[in-house]
């Protein structure tokens, strides 16, 4: 059974959804930083797949990479439409603030999370896919739609940025103490 036939068959499609939805949802969550948006994007991706079963070409890569590519486009579209909205930064920040009694390690993780969220999308997506999702360079390249070398260079720059951010966060904490 080919992939497009699997997409057309109910049972196969359900199995396919159950296999691939976690990676799509987590990618959307990391990129959007919002569970509701991530759920919407995941739904949009699979609904799109239902209506375009022939668009996936197995010769060009794995289905998960393809689905992440679709999710990326949905996120981009959503980001463009959300430009008209002004985020409530203060409220959001307060809601995500952690209590002061957290250990340094957890603070470092939160700082990293914030730093990843602050990365430009093209760097953020490679970090999410390679470091958090554990995809290979080739899979990331297929999902993002660029060369493997580009993925490597973006990842390198992103890591440098994140390391600097973490270091500055640590310095701030030392000064505060």
């Amino acid at each position: 059974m080919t992939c497009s036939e699997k997409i057309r068959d109910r049972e196969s499609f359900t199995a396919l959804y159950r296999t691939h939805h976690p990676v799509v949802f987590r990618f959307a969550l990391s990129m959007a930083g919002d569970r509701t948006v991530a759920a919407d994007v995941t739904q949009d991706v699979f609904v799109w797949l239902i209506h375009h079963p022939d668009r996936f070409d197995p010769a060009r890569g794995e289905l998960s990479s393809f689905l992440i590519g679709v999710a990326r486009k949905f996120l981009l579209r959503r980001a463009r439409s959300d430009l008209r909205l002004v985020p409530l930064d203060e409220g959001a920040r307060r809601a995500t603030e952690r209590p002061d009694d957290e250990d340094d390690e957890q603070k470092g993780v939160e700082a990293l999370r914030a730093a990843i969220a602050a990365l430009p999308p093209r760097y953020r997506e490679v970090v999410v896919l390679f470091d958090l999702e554990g995809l290979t360079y080739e899979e990331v390249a297929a999902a993002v739609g660029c060369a493997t070398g580009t993925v490597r260079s973006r990842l390198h720059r992103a890591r440098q940025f994140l390391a600097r951010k973490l270091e500055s966060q640590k310095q701030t904490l030392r000064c505060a103490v």
Partner: protein
Amino acid sequence: MNTRGTELDRAMAILAAEHSTARTPVSVEQAVIAEFDSSRPRRRMGIAGAGAAIAALLIAGAFVARERPSRSRAAAKTVAQQPPGLVKGAGPVMRPALRKRASVRHQNIPRESAGEPFVAIPYTVPLAPDERAAVVRLALSPSAFAAVGFPLPAIDPGYDTLADVLVGEDGRAHAIRIVADSSFR
């Protein structure tokens, strides 16, 4: 840089572990499967419709094949069991006595009288164009003929005469024809 890298890797590993615990809401799967089901009705309806049409045709064919012979058989049987004299509305009602003497001799149209025309029994409603009819051969007494409007120049009133009676779907006699050279007993 090396220390920074180690710290970053450690934090990244913790974040990756936390990241992997994120779960998609169940409502997403339900919505996606509902969309899948709603996007395929035309095809499923097409298959179901074709199946239903084939089944309906088969049933109709079987019904027609079964009904045709049984109807004519049933009609003949009914007529055979009920002589024209007992059939309501078959022109002038024949006397009950006729019932005892009338007997069915043949179910099929007899060859010797096939060319003879049927004569309509007076005051009966003619057969509808699509109405089925059965021909029943009966032995009728001269008085029965007289009762339905056909007085015979009977030689002997004790002799019965063979006649083909055209019986409609409702069991009423509509026409009659005398079988040539049929006087007996």
